[in-house]
């Protein structure tokens, strides 16, 4: 027998299940924003052209906004999960770490001119790797106890 689900809005995923569409958009959308910031940082450190650093600042700010919304979804999912461990917890914890480091990186990028470097570039590398891993884990969560899906 297929489990009967209670009425769930389309934007909200079931407890412990993979992210719903809106959650997935914000989570996956963070990846190009943080990676874009990293690429801009690399361009700035190669050229000293300040506009690349400005781009990096805004891409990071956008990444923080997207990751922050995804983080709220992840928290709700975790709280609603039957078992608060395993993938939902790992995903939430990784996203939280990514978001906090991203915020530190935003402040680092608020320094003037070359004062952003080299710490800004190092943080952008770390945050870019973290968001790729986090999104991968977050988006490959399985539905536990769902009949037929193994």
């Amino acid at each position, binding site marked *: 027998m297929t489990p009967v689900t209670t009425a769930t809005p389309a934007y909200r995923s079931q407890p412990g299940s993979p992210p719903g569409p809106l959650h997935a958009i914000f989570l996956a959308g963070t990846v190009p924003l943080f990676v874009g910031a990293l690429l801009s940082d690399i361009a700035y450190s190669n050229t000293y052209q300040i506009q690349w650093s400005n781009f990096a*600042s805004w891409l990071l700010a956008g990444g923080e906004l997207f990751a922050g919304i995804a983080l709220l979804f992840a928290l709700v999912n975790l709280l609603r999960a039957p078992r608060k461990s395993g993938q939902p917890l790992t995903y939430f914890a990784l996203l939280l770490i990514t978001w906090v480091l991203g915020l530190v990186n935003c402040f680092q990028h*608020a*320094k003037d001119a070359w004062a952003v470097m080299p710490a800004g570039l190092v943080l952008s590398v770390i945050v870019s790797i973290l968001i790729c891993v986090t999104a991968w884990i977050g988006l490959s969560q399985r539905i536990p106890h769902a009949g037929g899906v193994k």
Partner: protein
Amino acid sequence: MKRLSTLTMIGVALLVSACNDKGGDTLAHGADPKLPAPQRGLLPSMKIAEPTPWGDQKPTVPEGYSVTAIAGDLQIPRQTLVLPNGDILVAEGRGGNAAKLKPKDVIAGYIKAKGNTKVKSGNRLTLLRDADGDGKYELKTVFADNLNAPYGLAFADNKIYVANQDALVRFDYSEGQTAAAAAPTTITQLPSEINHHWTKAMTISPDGRYVYVGIGSNSNITERGMEAEVDRAMVWQIDVNTRTYKPYATGLRNPTALAMHPETGQLWSVVNERDELGPDLVPDYLTSVREGGFYGWPYSYWGQNVDPRVKPENPKKVAAAIKPDYSLGSHVAALGLSFSQPVMGAKFANGAFVGEHGSWNRANPVGYKVIFVPFAGGRPAGEPIDFVTGFRDANGKTRGRPVGVTVDPKGALIVADDLANVVWRVTPNR
């Protein structure tokens, strides 16, 4: 962005409250200030003193001196000029049109605006007259309007020169006039793109041939790009007859007031130095301005101290940088300069008055007063003396912020206050 700015503000509040880099209570003054190593936490220290009205209170002046408000309800008074007949012209306005390039600019702009007046830019000159010499300026009238953020003022040969934020203009003047007869003549355009530091300070050579105009940098430390700094952070010498100009001295980050030393004829300037290197860096300074001299910005500060935030580097320019004459202390924001005369009283007869607008990039605020730097033999000699204080009240709120200072040969110091929108007059008692 809303989310980020709220978080940043919380961060700023935390930083200020938990700050262990407040900086000393005493500032490094004089020719050889002690310079600590640069430091900057994750967030810059920002301390904006909340404005509060003067009420019945007045600034504090030394014993034997009196202070009165000679005009109020102005529209952001900045610099003043005393005309030969004793009338006072007040330049009113606020300029700048720098775009917000980073999230930081949005947030920092919002915070800094809390420490400034909400009054709109006057873009005009107001004339104050005390016809009977009783110290009360009974006439307050608009001398000229429709100007563009006027700041620097100078007078010679029955001409009034006004440095707008984008152009040097000239009015014809005849003694006793209370309003300009016609719109001014433009002598030359001034660099005004972006105008991060928009104030165009000015003074004139004793023979009335050259005016010197201070043009501030277009950034704190090149964060708007090197291209934005063409024709910035320098003093121009402009020949008012031929309307030609040349850079007279460069590397002066923000020369906010210029004056000629009355005995030596030497050009002097107060200069606001760079921020975000810690509470005790970089000293704002008072210096003689040498023709052809380079004073360090952006590559280095106080001589050969390299600023690592500037790329690409320029070791040749660093090696050529002149050390300024006299440190006023970091972040005091000196905006006014006027040389004294014996009529100001024995203790203040020989030296320079300096108006200090006050700090933002320091947990322990400094400035917010008018000081006197004693001179001997045409050079600074000795520690500065407080001349007008009390611009912050006992609770740390700000009642006023001094800008331009002008010595009136009748025996008075005129101080423009751009927070209270008042002009103060300090006189020796007799």
